[in-house]
């Protein structure tokens, strides 16, 4: 059983379990699934700076912060007790493309060749990690949610603005992954 759990889980196990998070949070406390809001709560708690957007009762959303602490703990547990001993399997077309940029390490879910403390000081690493992170934080709040809040919670409750947001998430990703990322990786 434990050997089976250590394998990468297929989409038809992973997806439904993620989907069940929606009713779980609703039944446990009438909470809407959404993770990017935690970034806003952290701003409101730590650096409100008198900005109206950060003046609200963030303490009423403490559950959300507890939830993401749980996600990090889950990451620790999964990588400690359920670690997959084999390298991450990827499509040969992708590994051929990445090899051209010197990305050959598939031991972790995060590409160790480009995402590590040393490469943070290179232009390539800084654009990927600092630049990419900034776009994630700015974009999710501008859109009013991320993949959890819009794509899963929003679409499953039949909110058409969430469908629009999700289509734009995908469009932005397609453009950047295919047209911009190769340029950044070649830096």
């Amino acid at each position, binding site marked *: 059983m434990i050997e089976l759990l250590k394998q990468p889980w297929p989409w038809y196990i992973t997806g439904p*379990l993620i989907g069940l998070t929606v009713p779980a949070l609703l039944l446990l406390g009438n909470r809407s699934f959404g993770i990017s809001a935690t970034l806003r709560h952290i701003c409101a708690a730590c650096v409100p700076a008198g900005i109206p957007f950060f003046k609200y009762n963030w303490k009423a959303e403490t559950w959300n912060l507890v939830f993401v602490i749980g996600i*990090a703990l889950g990451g620790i547990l999964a990588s400690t007790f359920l670690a997959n001993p084999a390298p991450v399997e990827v499509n040969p077309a992708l590994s051929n493309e990445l090899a051209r940029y010197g990305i050959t390490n598939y031991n972790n879910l995060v590409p160790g060749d480009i995402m590590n403390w040393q490469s943070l000081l290179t232009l390539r690493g800084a654009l990927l990690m600092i630049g990419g992170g900034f776009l*994630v934080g700015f974009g999710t709040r501008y859109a009013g949610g991320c993949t959890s809040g819009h794509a899963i919670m929003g679409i499953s409750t039949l909110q058409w603005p969430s469908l629009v947001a999700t289509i734009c998430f995908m469009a932005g990703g397609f453009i950047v992954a295919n047209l911009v990322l190769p340029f950044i990786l070649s830096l």
Partner: protein
Amino acid sequence: MLKHNIADNDFEVRSTASATTDAGTPDHKWFHFLKYLVTGVLFGIVFVKGEVVSWFRIQEMFRLQSFHMYGVIGSAIAVAMIAVWFIKKLGIKTINGQSISFTPKKFNKGQVYGGLIFGSGWALTGACPGPLFAQIGTGATVIVVVLLSAIAGTWVYGLLREKLPH
């Protein structure tokens, strides 16, 4: 009026009015948060084992090289949709007997502009906000910088939002 509309467009944060109705629920003692901690832990394990937090899987998705992420997102939406339908249809309440509420989302241009910006960041970092926390948990400590940068991005949005088209 404009200000009012903008204030209402963040669907992940409850308005002050509805937050006060929360006072009647027992979610204010520390041990009531344990249920969210446990849900988060299970969710984090699924994220890692399903490789949803993998930069490589995200790249495959945006290059149409793998069905995996489409299967994950599609089946997650389907299961959530069926569950929500049952909750609404049967009028199911929370474990504390509270009514379950859904907030309708209004369209604004932020969903387009912000969506494109987030999608760009998703392709670069290979992570949405949830996976960032899970990646840090797997020992990729440098992702703390990505998370701090995402918090900075959220803060700058808060600073500029009155000037941005919505």
